[in-house]
């Protein structure tokens, strides 16, 4: 089939990012031609400020060298501006008369700096700050001239002023507003910023309105005059008062524009053959000027150009960082507050720290940080997720590290870390390696970093830290992990969407799911298949059929794989209680199969390590015990203390309670592993405070706690309810676990699930609504009823081949 022709007008970050995304999805669909007005290949416009400040070189900010265009078969025309679109004949016409045909056209014409319409704006020495040519002009001016005036105290203006100052000029910043960055900061933070920039030698003229740029006889700028007659010397005037979407081309072609080329949620203009992305578009009435939204647009647009037709762009929540080395500020959302909002403010002007959090309806809706931005990523996450923060409110101001967490998760001080400090403990990746990869390979997302460095790709506990490093390295071009993330590369659907489809469409097989949700791969991958398998089984118990090939090896063979390919065997030992006969059998098995290590586990059981796969079935048979499920996303163990039977402090029979719970939950699959504990008194010897369900006996009954976790990131369980009888313990715990099984996303522990839906929601479902609690409990018992012990099933012959290797001996070999 003849390839279709795609013409891209605009060789900048938005256009080329779209092309990159498109090539990843459909490398052979189009012949691609790119036109760019600038004489350069695609470069990282965001890094112009570091170049101006002398911290980066032009050569290092190129994102796609010319060789990239060649390798991907893209025809690149630099230094050629498209001046006309002939929509009827589907051609674009360049300023040199050249033409190109298109089947699809992508407009990524970016924006133009807005020049104040004052007398003298066309004098030599008056420039905008937009591209490499402007940056070069500023650098040239800095070496020859003395006085610079920057008009506009926004992000770009301040970065330009800082760079010119570092290059030795005397710089004044003129700003119409009452404080600097008045669209990104409130007055207090703006004041702190001003003070710190003044300490660096910049001077500020606030509340001034520029009336004229005064020129000399040679037609060069020499001063700026304000309303009221005041004048300051200026041989270089940088206009940084704002940008305007560049819509001239689109308008001349009759495309509907309204402060930007108007596009739909799939980035299509009013002409269905023409798409537009980047700073030139107006989406739902908003034109974006930062890079993160452009990348989101690029992803959606590429998907539609690739004819996959999945995904919508629904607008972006923005955050701001200033790329001036040594000044930390961050803002996001509605940081000014106002009616119906509450502010939490920490102000330490002498220490140069100011933080303001704006809360509305129990949600974080805005943040403005100055001087200490280490928790910016966390606040931004809370803001985007719209999560209820009432449970965090007391410590919200003190950041993620203050929320009762002694683990290593994310709150470490990314900015303060040395390059040689380890970030990812699992894969041994240092900060320096990550920063280098981000810069050299042009990475923008946590997923990119995971792929290229392996950091955060194993246990994931350093994801927050990696996110911070990305933020610190990239500034405002940081692209946060989208809150609605696709499960894997096989689909654009999220966990929530997949669960919903399985439930509402009554899907009961893998194939039905892949078909209905239009998977890109024929049979999924190692990431999505186990998730889909779990969703099918938990949504349609006794109806959906388990697919062993969609399970990780441990769950398929019912033992835990070790680094040398042998397995560990942990028999069930309810409540940690055993007897001489079991212990004898365990000892005999260890002898008979020469088990290299016998170890007591943290869950009060006995682990036989180093068992060969082909011995597993016989080991189970000789043990004569049930599976302890110590290998699955399933019920693990119920840890208990001695309780009132023996302990002089015990208030209830915690041991029996634990045994009863473990009996009830036997063979239960879940989104992730589930651990319980029952303590006989508040001394809590069974460590119930860090379990998914922790039960603590008191004299008058039992206290139930949920969402604890002793793993990667230690989390203390939260109080759910107090009940009187052991039957109630079973009903409440069972109902909570069933809710988790029905609603959590695969690989979310209970703590993650509760963080997503809120403890209030759990309490409403379990504690307040007795009928719902009973229904949940019934559904759990129904799902578990009749499930066979997996070891017994395999002793009886199930999946026999799995455990038997085939032996092949070529002729001539000794047998």
């Amino acid at each position, binding site marked *: 089939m003849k390839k279709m022709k795609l013409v891209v007008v605009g060789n900048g970050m938005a256009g080329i990012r779209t092309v990159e995304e498109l090539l990843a999805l459909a490398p052979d669909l189009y012949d691609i031609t790119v036109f760019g007005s600038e004489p350069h290949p695609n470069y990282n416009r965001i890094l112009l400020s570091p170049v101006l400040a002398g911290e980066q070189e032009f050569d290092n900010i190129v994102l796609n060298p010319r060789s990239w265009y060649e390798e991907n078969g893209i025809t690149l025309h630099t230094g050629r501006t498209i001046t006309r679109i002939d929509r009827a004949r589907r051609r674009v016409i360049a300023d040199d008369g050249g033409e190109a045909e298109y089947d699809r056209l992508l407009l990524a014409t970016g924006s133009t700096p807005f020049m104040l319409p004052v007398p003298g704006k066309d004098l030599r020495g008056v420039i905008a700050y937009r591209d490499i040519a402007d940056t070069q002009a500023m650098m040239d001016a800095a070496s020859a001239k003395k006085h610079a005036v920057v008009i506009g105290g926004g992000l770009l203006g301040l970065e330009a002023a800082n760079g010119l100052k570092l290059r030795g000029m005397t710089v004044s910043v003129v700003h119409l507003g009452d404080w600097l960055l008045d669209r990104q900061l409130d007055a207090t933070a703006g004041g702190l910023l001003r003070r710190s920039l003044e300490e660096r030698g910049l001077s500020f003229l606030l509340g001034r309105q520029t009336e004229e740029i005064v020129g000399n006889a040679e037609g060069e700028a020499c001063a700026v005059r304000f309303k009221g007659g005041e004048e300051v010397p200026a041989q270089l005037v940088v206009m940084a008062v704002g940008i305007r979407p560049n819509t001239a081309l689109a308008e001349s072609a009759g495309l509907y524009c309204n402060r930007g080329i108007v596009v739909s949620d799939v980035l299509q203009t009013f002409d269905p053959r023409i798409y537009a992305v980047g700073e030139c578009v107006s989406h739902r009435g908003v034109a974006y000027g930062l890079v993160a939204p452009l990348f989101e647009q690029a992803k959606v647009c590429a998907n539609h150009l690739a004819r996959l037709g999945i995904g919508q762009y629904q607008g972006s929540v923005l955050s701001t960082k200033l790329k001036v080395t040594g000044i930390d500020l961050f803002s996001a959302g509605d940081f000014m507050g106002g009616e119906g909002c509450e502010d939490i403010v920490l102000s330490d002007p002498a220490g140069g720290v100011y933080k303001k959090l704006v809360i509305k309806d129990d949600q974080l809706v805005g943040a403005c940080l100055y001087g200490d931005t280490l928790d910016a990523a966390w606040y931004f996450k809370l803001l985007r997720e719209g999560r209820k923060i009432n449970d965090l409110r007391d410590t919200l101001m003190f950041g993620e590290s203050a929320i009762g967490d002694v683990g290593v998760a994310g709150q470490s001080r990314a900015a303060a870390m040395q390059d040689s400090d380890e970030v990812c403990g699992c894969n041994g990746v240092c900060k320096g390696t990550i920063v280098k990869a981000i810069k050299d390979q042009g990475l923008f997302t946590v997923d990119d970093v995971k792929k290229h460095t392996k950091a955060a790709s194993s246990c994931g506990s350093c994801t927050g830290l990696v996110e911070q490093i990305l933020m610190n390295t990239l500034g405002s071009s940081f692209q946060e992990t989208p809150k609605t993330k696709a499960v894997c590369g096989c689909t654009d659907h999220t966990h929530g969407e997949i669960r919903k489809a399985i439930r509402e469409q009554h899907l009961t097989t893998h194939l039905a799911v892949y078909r209905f949700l239009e998977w890109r791969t024929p049979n999924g991958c190692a990431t999505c298949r186990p998730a889909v398998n779990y969703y099918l089984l938990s949504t349609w118990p006794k109806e959906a059929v388990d697919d062993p090939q969609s399970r990780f090896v441990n769950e398929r063979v019912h033992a835990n794989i070790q680094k040398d390919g042998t397995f560990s065997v942990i028999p069930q030992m309810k409540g940690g209680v055993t007897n001489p006969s079991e212990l004898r059998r365990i000892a005999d098995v260890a002898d008979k199969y020469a088990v290299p290590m016998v170890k007591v586990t943290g869950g009060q059981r006995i682990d036989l390590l180093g068992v060969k796969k082909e011995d597993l079935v016989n080991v189970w048979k000789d043990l004569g015990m049930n599976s302890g499920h110590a290998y699955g996303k399933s019920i693990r163990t119920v840890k208990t203390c001695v309780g009132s039977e023996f302990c002089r402090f015990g208030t209830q029979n915690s041991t029996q309670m634990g045994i009863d719970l473990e009996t009830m939950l036997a063979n239960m699959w879940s989104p992730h592993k589930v651990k319980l504990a029952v303590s006989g008194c508040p001394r809590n010897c069974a460590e119930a405070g860090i379990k998914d369900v922790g039960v603590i006996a008191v004299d008058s009954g039992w206290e139930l706690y949920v969402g604890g976790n002793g793993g990667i990131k230690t989390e203390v369980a939260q109080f759910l309810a107090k009940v009187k009888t052991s039957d109630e313990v079973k009903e409440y715990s069972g109902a909570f676990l069933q809710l988790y099984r029905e609603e959590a996303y695969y690989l979310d522990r209970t703590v993650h699930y509760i963080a997503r839906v809120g403890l209030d929601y759990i309490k409403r479902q379990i504690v307040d609504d007795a009928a719902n609690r009973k229904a949940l409990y019934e559904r759990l018992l129904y799902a578990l009823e009749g499930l066979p012990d997996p070891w017994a099933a395999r002793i009886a012959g199930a999946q026999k081949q799995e455990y038997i290797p085939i032996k092949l001996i070529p002729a*001539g070999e000794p047998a």
Partner: protein
Amino acid sequence: MNAPATQQWLRVCAVNEIPLLGSRLVECPSGNIAVFRTAEDNVFALLDRCPHKAGPLSQGIVHGETVTCPLHSWNIDLKSGEAKAPDVGCARRYPVEVRDGDVFLALASA
């Protein structure tokens, strides 16, 4: 794939004795070999050692024409034995054929 003269073809098992989207472990004097079966009934054979840390590929999840190592989730292409980017490495391939529903593997003669 033709076996060199020093190799001999040996019958392993029937195709349907390998689970769909699964594998069987074949023990040979020269080392363990993993024999995989895809959804389309294509059969591939690789040395049962991940190029990363020697994980048993035969225990991995098979999807498309790829197996994911059970130890650290490297993705190995069944056809070429090569690790998928950004990982780098290669697992040894063995000639394998299906004849009349039986799987044959070419092994070096002694």
